């Protein structure tokens, strides 16, 4: 798999430690009482086994020494440990579930915060970061297992120490027993490595067949897959790939089980040695029959502990690897915020008088070495409507991203009425702007909320939403909804109503119209899915409103469009080509210039002659 992640595949000890402590901190913060309860109960449960073993010894000695009271004591010890252990385990299960759920929720909450707190969008767009975010999203379930697998590991240590103590109580020589377990531990590591290697070698094919499965079962591609008759081909590919992968995994796994079996056979030697050693001592009268019973129980328990150790520790390490991805995101978020949010933020003017100026702005995307914008000087006059045009990939969207502060210029600066934009807190700047994008969000919320989030203080204000939809010429979308603004949108929900692309886009436009007096309104191809009539109505209407807001607060509207019928309405048109401002002026000026703008305009206009 070519995931160009930035998180190392095998984080070192320090990284693992950090990811475990981070998860534990989040866990204790989320649900301190349950974390504590789980730890204590887990600790107590660990004594159940050793106490049972000790009870069996006391009971056995009672039998052989005809010590009735001792036998009763032993029976009570065994049965008590058994019953209490059982009750503890049950209580633990509900604690365990609670902890997992709450820690999972807290982790998700932190994740949302981390991802959303970063003012920029590099982590959504830069391939290697995007991959990390994607993996984190898929594997986040493992994060919630870190606390309990850590507690489990600690419990294992506690139990081993107790078991060893009891063994030593029979005879110190028995402390050698765990040596026979060394092969099992070594094999445990080998098995883990084999499994990981096998997984790495099949992961690409596995992702392929999971992808095929998802594609075939999801709604999204249903039409195309049928029209293009892909059914048999997809099934065959899925079955071939999964059979191949399963075959390979099985070969590796069976080999691993064989190794495990052999390692456990080695432990049998230890078991026999211990049993023989104690049996002979009993025979010679140097130990009691109970000691032999104890030794037998303990050997059995050590056997189980060694199996458990390999599983528990392996599981913890796997979870910790995911945890480290989380730590990475948290580090990234911290650094990204520190880089953009000014320590002493400058204030924004209440209204624009001059406008927004790009001064020698160059930009290249992080991790690349080509300028997308090069030495751009551009002035967006207060109160004006500016249209950006140009071929796909010319740099229009990048200009918009810099204006929205999704990225910061590599060189040069942007001034808002003379105030460097980089001195302004991005959150503050965004309170004063609004935007609609071609790649708009389809918020699967109530229609009211989906539009209302455009101005959060008014999110539940239906009059405000109504007004915004009106300004966006989008009231018809809501009129068609079964419960109007109270309709749940989106097909992820049983009661949700799915909209067409154009309807979603109109709602997005309504969202952009929620803030009535922004200093900057960005419209990045906001009408690409709409038909010409709608677009026409919208812009006629919008132009009037824009002028009005323009005069009130000096607001600037920046519009990106491929439709020259719309573009020509702008006060100022900017043609972006190959990362520079190629041409600018009014429609009449640019047509008169006879350059690229005139050519593109002519290309479209001739369809109407």
């Amino acid at each position, binding site marked *: 798999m070519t995931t160009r992640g930035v998180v190392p595949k095998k984080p070192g000890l320090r990284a693992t430690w950090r990811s475990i402590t981070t998860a534990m901190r989040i866990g204790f913060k989320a649900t301190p009482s349950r974390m504590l309860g789980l730890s204590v109960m887990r600790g107590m449960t660990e004594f159940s086994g050793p106490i*049972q073993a000790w009870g*069996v010894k006391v*009971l*056995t000695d*009672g*039998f052989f020494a005809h010590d009735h009271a001792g*036998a*009763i004591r032993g029976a009570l010890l065994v*049965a008590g440990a058994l019953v209490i252990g*059982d009750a503890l385990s*049950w209580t633990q299960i509900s604690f365990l579930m*609670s902890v997992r759920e709450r820690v999972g*929720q807290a982790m*998700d*909450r932190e994740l*949302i915060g981390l991802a*959303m707190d970063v003012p920029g969008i590099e982590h959504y767009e830069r*391939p290697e970061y995007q991959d990390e975010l994607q993996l984190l*999203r898929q594997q986040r379930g493992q994060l919630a297992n870190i606390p309990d697998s850590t507690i489990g590991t600690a419990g294992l240590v506690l139990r081993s120490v107790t078991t060893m103590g009891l063994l030593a109580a029979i005879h110190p020589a028995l402390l050698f027993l765990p040596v026979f377990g060394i092969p099992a531990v070594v094999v445990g590591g080998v098995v883990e490595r084999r499994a990981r290697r096998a997984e790495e070698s099949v992961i*690409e094919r596995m*992702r392929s067949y999971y992808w095929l*499965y998802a594609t075939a079962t999801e709604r999204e*591609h249903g*039409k195309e*897959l*049928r*029209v*293009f008759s*892909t059914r048999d*081909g997809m*099934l065959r590919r*899925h*079955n071939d790939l999964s059979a191949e992968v399963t075959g390979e995994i*099985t070969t590796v796994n*069976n080999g691993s089980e*064989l190794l*495990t079996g052999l390692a456990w*056979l080695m432990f049998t030697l230890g078991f026999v040695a211990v049993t023989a050693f*104690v049996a002979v001592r*009993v025979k010679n009268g140097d130990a009691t029959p109970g000691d032999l019973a104890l030794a*037998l129980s303990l050997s059995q328990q050590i056997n189980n502990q060694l199996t458990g150790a390999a599983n528990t520790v392996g599981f913890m390490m796997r979870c910790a690897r995911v945890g480290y991805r989380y730590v990475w995101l948290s580090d990234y978020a911290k650094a990204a915020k520190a880089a953009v949010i000014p320590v002493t933020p400058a204030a924004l003017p209440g209204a624009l008088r001059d406008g927004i100026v790009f001064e020698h702005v160059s930009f290249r995307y992080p991790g690349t070495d080509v300028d997308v914008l090069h030495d751009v000087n551009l002035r967006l006059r207060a109160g004006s409507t500016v249209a950006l045009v140009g071929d*796909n990939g010319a740099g229009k969207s990048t200009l918009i991203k810099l204006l929205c502060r999704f990225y910061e210029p590599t060189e040069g600066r942007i001034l808002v009425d003379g105030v460097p934009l980089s001195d302004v807190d*991005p959150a503050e700047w965004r309170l004063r702007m*609004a935007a609609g994008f071609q790649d708009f*969000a389809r*918020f699967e919320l109530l229609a009211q909320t989906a539009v209302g*989030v455009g101005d959060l203080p008014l999110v539940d204000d239906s009059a405000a939403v109504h007004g915004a939809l009106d300004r966006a010429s989008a009231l018809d979308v809501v009129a068609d909804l079964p419960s109007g603004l109270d309709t749940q949108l989106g097909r992820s929900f*049983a009661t949700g109503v799915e909209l067409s*692309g154009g309807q979603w886009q109109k709602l*997005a436009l309504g969202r952009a119209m929620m803030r009535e007096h922004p200093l900057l309104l960005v419209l990045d191809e906001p009408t690409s*899915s709409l038909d*010409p009539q*709608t677009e*026409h109505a919208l812009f006629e209407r919008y132009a009037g409103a824009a002028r009005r807001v323009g005069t009130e607060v000096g607001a600037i509207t920046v519009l990106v469009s491929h439709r*020259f*019928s719309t573009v020509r309405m702008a006060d100022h048109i900017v043609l972006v080509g190959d990362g520079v401002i190629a041409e600018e002026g009014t429609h009449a000026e640019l047509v008169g210039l006879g350059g690229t703008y005139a050519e593109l305009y002519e*290309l*479209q206009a001739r*369809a*109407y002659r």
Partner: protein
Amino acid sequence: MAGARAFFTNLNERPRVRAHVMAWEANAPLAVVLVVLIVVGAAFAPLYAVLVGTVIGAAARHQSVTAPLIAIGAVYAVSQVLGPARDAVTGMLNRRVDDRVRAEMMEAMLRPHGIAHLEDAALQDKLELARGIAWGITPGSTVGGLAQLWFSRLSSLGSLLLVARFRWWLAVVLLVANLVTLRSKRKAFINLTQIYGQGTERLRKSSYFREVALGADAAKEARVFGLGPWAIDRFDGAWFETMREVWAERRRGGLVVSAGLLLKGVVTVSAFLYIANAAFAASARPPQDFVVIIQALLSVAGLSMVLGNPELILEQGTSAIRPTIEVERDIATHSASAIRGDRDDVTEPRHSIKFENVSFGYPGRDDLVFDGLNLELPAGHSLAIVGDNGAGKTTLVKLLARLYDPTSGRITVDGIPLADVDPAAWHRQLAAIFQDFGRYALTAAENVGLSNFGDEPDLDALNRVADRVGIRPLIDGWEHGWDSVLNRQFDKGVEASGGEWQRIALARALFAVERGAHVLVLDEPTAQLDVRGEAELYDRFLELTAGLTTVVISHRFSTVRRADRIVVVEHGKVCEVGSHDELMAAGGKYASMFELQAARFAS
């Protein structure tokens, strides 16, 4: 006979029974091996208890311990190897079951020729549960659960026999107490898993905010509108609201288990005390016999222990099996009203495709998209469909492609009702670009040659269509050419821009034409192209659609006006038909729409 069959069908639909059947069907010989391993392994439990008694007894009586030592060592050694052997076989069956379930679910979802079932949100939920999402435990994991369950049942049963040989009634009491506890725990586990399952729809309201935050789709707007803290609040609110109910249910379930545990506790303590006392009776057996019984009691107690209890895994696994049964059932229901037909003699349309008085409304919705639509698509010509957003243009394409059948009225191809035609045969006649065309994580060759998916790529045809839509240089420029995977996350992965994808989708449709399709559907074929790209494409529109029965849907008059015929659809009916010139002369809706746009280009 019918009754018996119904009985077995019912039985087979019980998830736990199905879990056994699935393992058996996945690979019968392996399942037999597993059963043998389980039975033999389980038999060792009582045997081991007896040997423990023997070795302790021998040592205590100062007799030779060699023979019992060899015996116990041998039993121990064999059971050490049996464990990994059981795990190996379990793993093999587990993976095979999962592969099969996935294949079956995939096959079921691909089976209907229509797409109504894909719109069924409840079905999608079941499918998700069938993947074992809720617990991370797949249907195949039940094999491991079952193996453990039977192993522990059988070994406890063996140990109970040892107890029964001493006091039969004690064995009965222990059995009953353990069964009661087991039952209460199982109920609680079922409760736990099902409550959680019921919460999934509501929890989705919460997790939706996580997906929004971690996905790129809303990244820009979330920042512009400052949604971070708000999203966290909503996430919290929705989660706690649902989970509080789940927790309350769970507490109620917990009480039953506590009662069960109490019963088992009393019985266990009594049993141990009884044995401890019995050893001191006047006519007591030798002490080592009691050691054996104690070992047996310990083994029996393990039957209903909680941690590592196979019941939990099994319950979680079967909560993924239950939906697989339901998916099959739902698909069968959907198939009852299926899109079918057996005429496979449909060839290219020679005269026309006709919509005759077609009415259609989406299942589960009251409003009609079309109400008595009449429309003729002349064979070998192009027809453009124009209308407002939501006028039903895309629905028309779905009917033409038989992804839905009309509610009433009919569609005919040269007089043959489309409803009689084998949908698969009809699909081979079709080539289409959909507005929401797929961006598949497949190779470039497969993305373009989708209609040939799974067979050897036809490089000549691929290169031909790539030349025609102008993506040949793009593909040749990639290191792996046609073998490049159009998804960065895969080996040989590359990324294509929106405009490039649009051309790939166009090539995909043209490739299907190369393979013999004669009906071409273009739904917004230039939406992602810039001005130049769009101009290039419509300049070649006539060449690309020559000889094909073409339906084109577009907002762009540059494309529309080149069609031989244009229909304007409004309120579910055709309101105007004619060529561009005819419609302009008629001065109706089309003319006003066109002029509206044209006026903005008048300089």
